């Protein structure tokens, strides 16, 4: 439970990062989610990604909506300001927060109910605006907190815990984000930390809206036979179609390390704004993670074939994020001195000559 304090004992074997912080410093309070919940694995991956990126926790703002997934920001980065807002409204609150202070790193955590039903409009418009944020959609196809209703991402024909069959079409956040012009679109699986952590790191380094859809099975309401979001189903159908790794700007490969395996397919490097590199490896024949239309049709084809394609599926590092489009000053708006904002009494007098 969240009021149970984690043991504060330091493990001397934990390796500090460049800031001298260990991975413990990137954790939060104890999770109150069900044992085995996919969301907890994602929390661990988020913790790891921030730790490995050497981000000072206080320079992160973590926001969420309402639902099981939206509880998780208390479970990581206790040194960051957090905001558990209202159902489906996190994207707007995050957008406003980003408008006020562009210096912080923003992470929004949401679920399929929060993002694809009540908050679909807000998520869509945050994508359109290309707000500079990592947006993690913890996707389990079910409403957990209200005990087992289908969500908008439940596949047609999938069965609920109570035996009902879902008659409606599923919304695919990856296809949706691609069609809305998202500049970074990835899908992963909560059970695949080795894939998820590099994606989260690349998403945090990306300047613009980074959607990371993570299939995150709900052990209590959607992990049964007939569910297409169960651990078993996901493990069987998850197919990593694009492997990507994130390489920091100042990375010097240790002697003898094998940095890439080019055997299975082609590879490509994409440089982000901060000088870091996303290295795509094992790209399937004919797949271009920079070609939006091609990615859309690839994902569609895979989906029709019953495969859940995962990986960093699409990346456009050149998109203009919200502040670039607005031409906002470099200093966070919230920190501008008042003197630089108020034109003063003399200007008011002068202006009012035109009100005569």
């Amino acid at each position, binding site marked *: 439970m*969240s009021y149970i304090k984690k043991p504060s004992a330091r493990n001397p074997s934990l390796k500090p990062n460049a800031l001298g912080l260990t991975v413990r410093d990137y954790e939060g309070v104890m999770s109150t989610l069900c044992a085995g919940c996919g969301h907890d694995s994602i929390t661990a991956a988020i913790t790891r990604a921030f730790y490995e990126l050497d981000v000072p926790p*206080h320079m992160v703002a973590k926001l969420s909506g309402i639902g099981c997934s939206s509880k998780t920001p208390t479970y990581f980065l206790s040194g960051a*300001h957090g905001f*558990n807002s209202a159902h489906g409204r996190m994207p*707007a*609150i995050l957008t406003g927060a980003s408008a*006020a202070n562009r210096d*912080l790193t923003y992470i929004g955590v949401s679920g399929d109910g929060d993002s694809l039903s009540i908050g679909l409009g807000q998520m869509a418009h945050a994508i359109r605006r290309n707000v500079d944020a990592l947006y993690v959609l913890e996707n389990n196809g079910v409403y957990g907190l209200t005990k087992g209703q289908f969500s908008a991402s439940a596949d047609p024909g999938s069965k609920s815990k109570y035996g009902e069959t879902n008659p409606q079409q599923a919304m695919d956040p990856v296809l949706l984000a691609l069609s809305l012009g998202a500049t970074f679109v990835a899908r992963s699986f909560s059970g695949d930390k080795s894939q998820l952590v590099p994606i989260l790191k690349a998403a945090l380094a990306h300047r613009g809206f980074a959607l990371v859809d993570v299939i995150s099975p709900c052990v209590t309401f959607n992990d049964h036979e007939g569910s297409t979001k169960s651990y078993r189903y996901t493990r069987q159908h998850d197919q990593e179609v694009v492997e990507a790794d994130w390489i920091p700007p100042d990375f010097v490969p240790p002697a003898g390390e094998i940095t890439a395996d080019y055997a299975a397919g082609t590879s490509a490097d994409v440089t982000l704004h901060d000088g870091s590199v996303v290295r795509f490896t094992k790209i399937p024949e004919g797949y271009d993670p920079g070609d939006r239309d091609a990615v859309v049709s690839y994902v569609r084809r895979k989906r029709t074939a019953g495969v859940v394609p995962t990986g960093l599926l699409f990346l456009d590092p050149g998109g203009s994020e919200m502040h670039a489009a607005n*031409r906002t000053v470099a200093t966070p708006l919230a920190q501008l001195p008042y003197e630089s*904002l108020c034109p003063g009494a003399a200007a008011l007098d002068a202006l009012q000559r035109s009100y005569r």
Partner: protein
Amino acid sequence: MVNRFAFKLANVNGTGSASANSLLMQAIFRMGIPVSGKNLFPSNIQGLPTWYEIRVDRDGHTARTARFDLMVAMNAETYEADIDEVRPGGWVLFDSSWPLKPSFLRTDVTFLGVPYANICIENFGAARERTLMKNIVYAGTLAALLDIDMDVVQGMLAEKFGAKPKLMASNAKAIRLGYDYAKEHFACPLPIRLEAMDTTADTILINGNTAIALGALYAGATVAAWYPITPSTSVLDAFKELCEEYRVDPETNERRYCILQAEDELAAIGMVIGAGWNGARAFTATSGPGISLMSELVGLAYYAEIPAVIVDVQRVGPSTGMPTRTQQGDILLCAYASHGDTKHLLLFPGNPEECFHFTARAFDLAERFQAPVFVLSDLDIGMNDWVVPRLTWDDSYRPDRGRVLSREDLEALPKYHRYSPEDWQGVAARTLPGTSSKGAFFTRGSGHNKHGGYTEDPDEYREVMDRLARKHWTARNFVPPALIETRPNASFGIVTVGSCDLAVREALAELAENGLMGDYLRVRGFPFGPEVESFLRRHDRMFVVEQNRDAQLRSLLTLETGVAKAQLFSVRAYGGLPLQADQVVREVVHQIRETEKERPA
């Protein structure tokens, strides 16, 4: 009849009449005469009837009046009703290019026909120019009929079209055509006429929405999020224009502001709350339907204690209602917006000057009390030009950011908690994201204890809610105090709000002339200050004048003060047009008579 009359211009919207009409109003203003202009326009872009009413009054009574001395009938579709509205003995100016239907003729008014269409066909080329210039030609006629100073008019045209000689030439020609025609054919000026005065020397002509934008600019607002809605849209138009003028770095072209056109009002208020949480002064402007949508997150800002400024330029509800008509129908909605126990700070400007100052103050209050603050204007104040004293600004002003802890403050503390300890105002210190990990806290709309931790404990929940109530109560001494004017031997009081101001003052003067002495109180803030309580205590009989059907101000007074319901009589006008003094006088006199009838002989 000198400097005391009203005239109305009946036009078709989308034909360019608005600029001619405001030119007339502005010319009268520049002649130093108290004047008001009310634009009655349809929710439409082109082709529907629209009216503009101008009232001049040497004593400064410039509320709307429905008694028109002169009708400028330029819309054949509404001739009949327009001609009907002129008082007996008045005048009708119309386009005599076509004969007037005999049934429209009245014997008790004077018809002044000018063949505007023909004049324009003879003198101007393109069809659009003919349409536009017709307005300027009738403005010229009115200049002759009413004795508007032609130098003033020419000067205004020069200011407007100085850089465009071709436009200047056609406008000057049009004015002259109308002027000369009147001089040749009518006895000019009419008995209703103008004479220069000096009452408007240190005043300006400004609408409330522009004044609100100025208030936000001067308060240092940097984030504005909004969704377009009549009649508040021009708040953001003006704010954008002002920011482009004063907040863009001339060298780098970078902006010291961020204006977000949201996808809806749900998002607009979310953005404001996000920005406020992060330490920027942020606001939104909307109207009633927007407030309905924003209510959910207003509750979040209330409970999580996040500053937000919400401008509500009220229009006629319920539902879509009448978007281009005025009302004060959102008083109760804003006072208690959102589910659960919520109460908000409200500021009620009564004119554009107060719009400016109250908006600036709203940001101080929002940050001091860490709460949403509503500025309740209305369409009449917001979209009509008002004559108000020149706005002043005190350069020594610095924003009141309320209790915000810096990194150094935090380091001096053993431990930081978001919602305690509170100060005497019931406010606890907040910290801004990015300050330090020691100040990091988790903001939530869910149940929380005084430390900010999640709770479902009854006592812990109540403790926070009780503090919020104390905080709200403290704010009564910080919102703008009510404006009070007393008369010796007053036998009743009038309590009113916002744009009712001018009509109520005029009504009180008229009532006083008839021996009915009344005191005046205009509410300017909520929670109600002690001065409101004591005014209510001092008067046995009060009339609450407001522009809505359900007597919302009266309800709020009975709910939130100790006043007895029976002390408060209700005077309401809610048809969507600005309040008139005669509506108030009639109703007050009627109700006084009724109560006297009931008294035993």
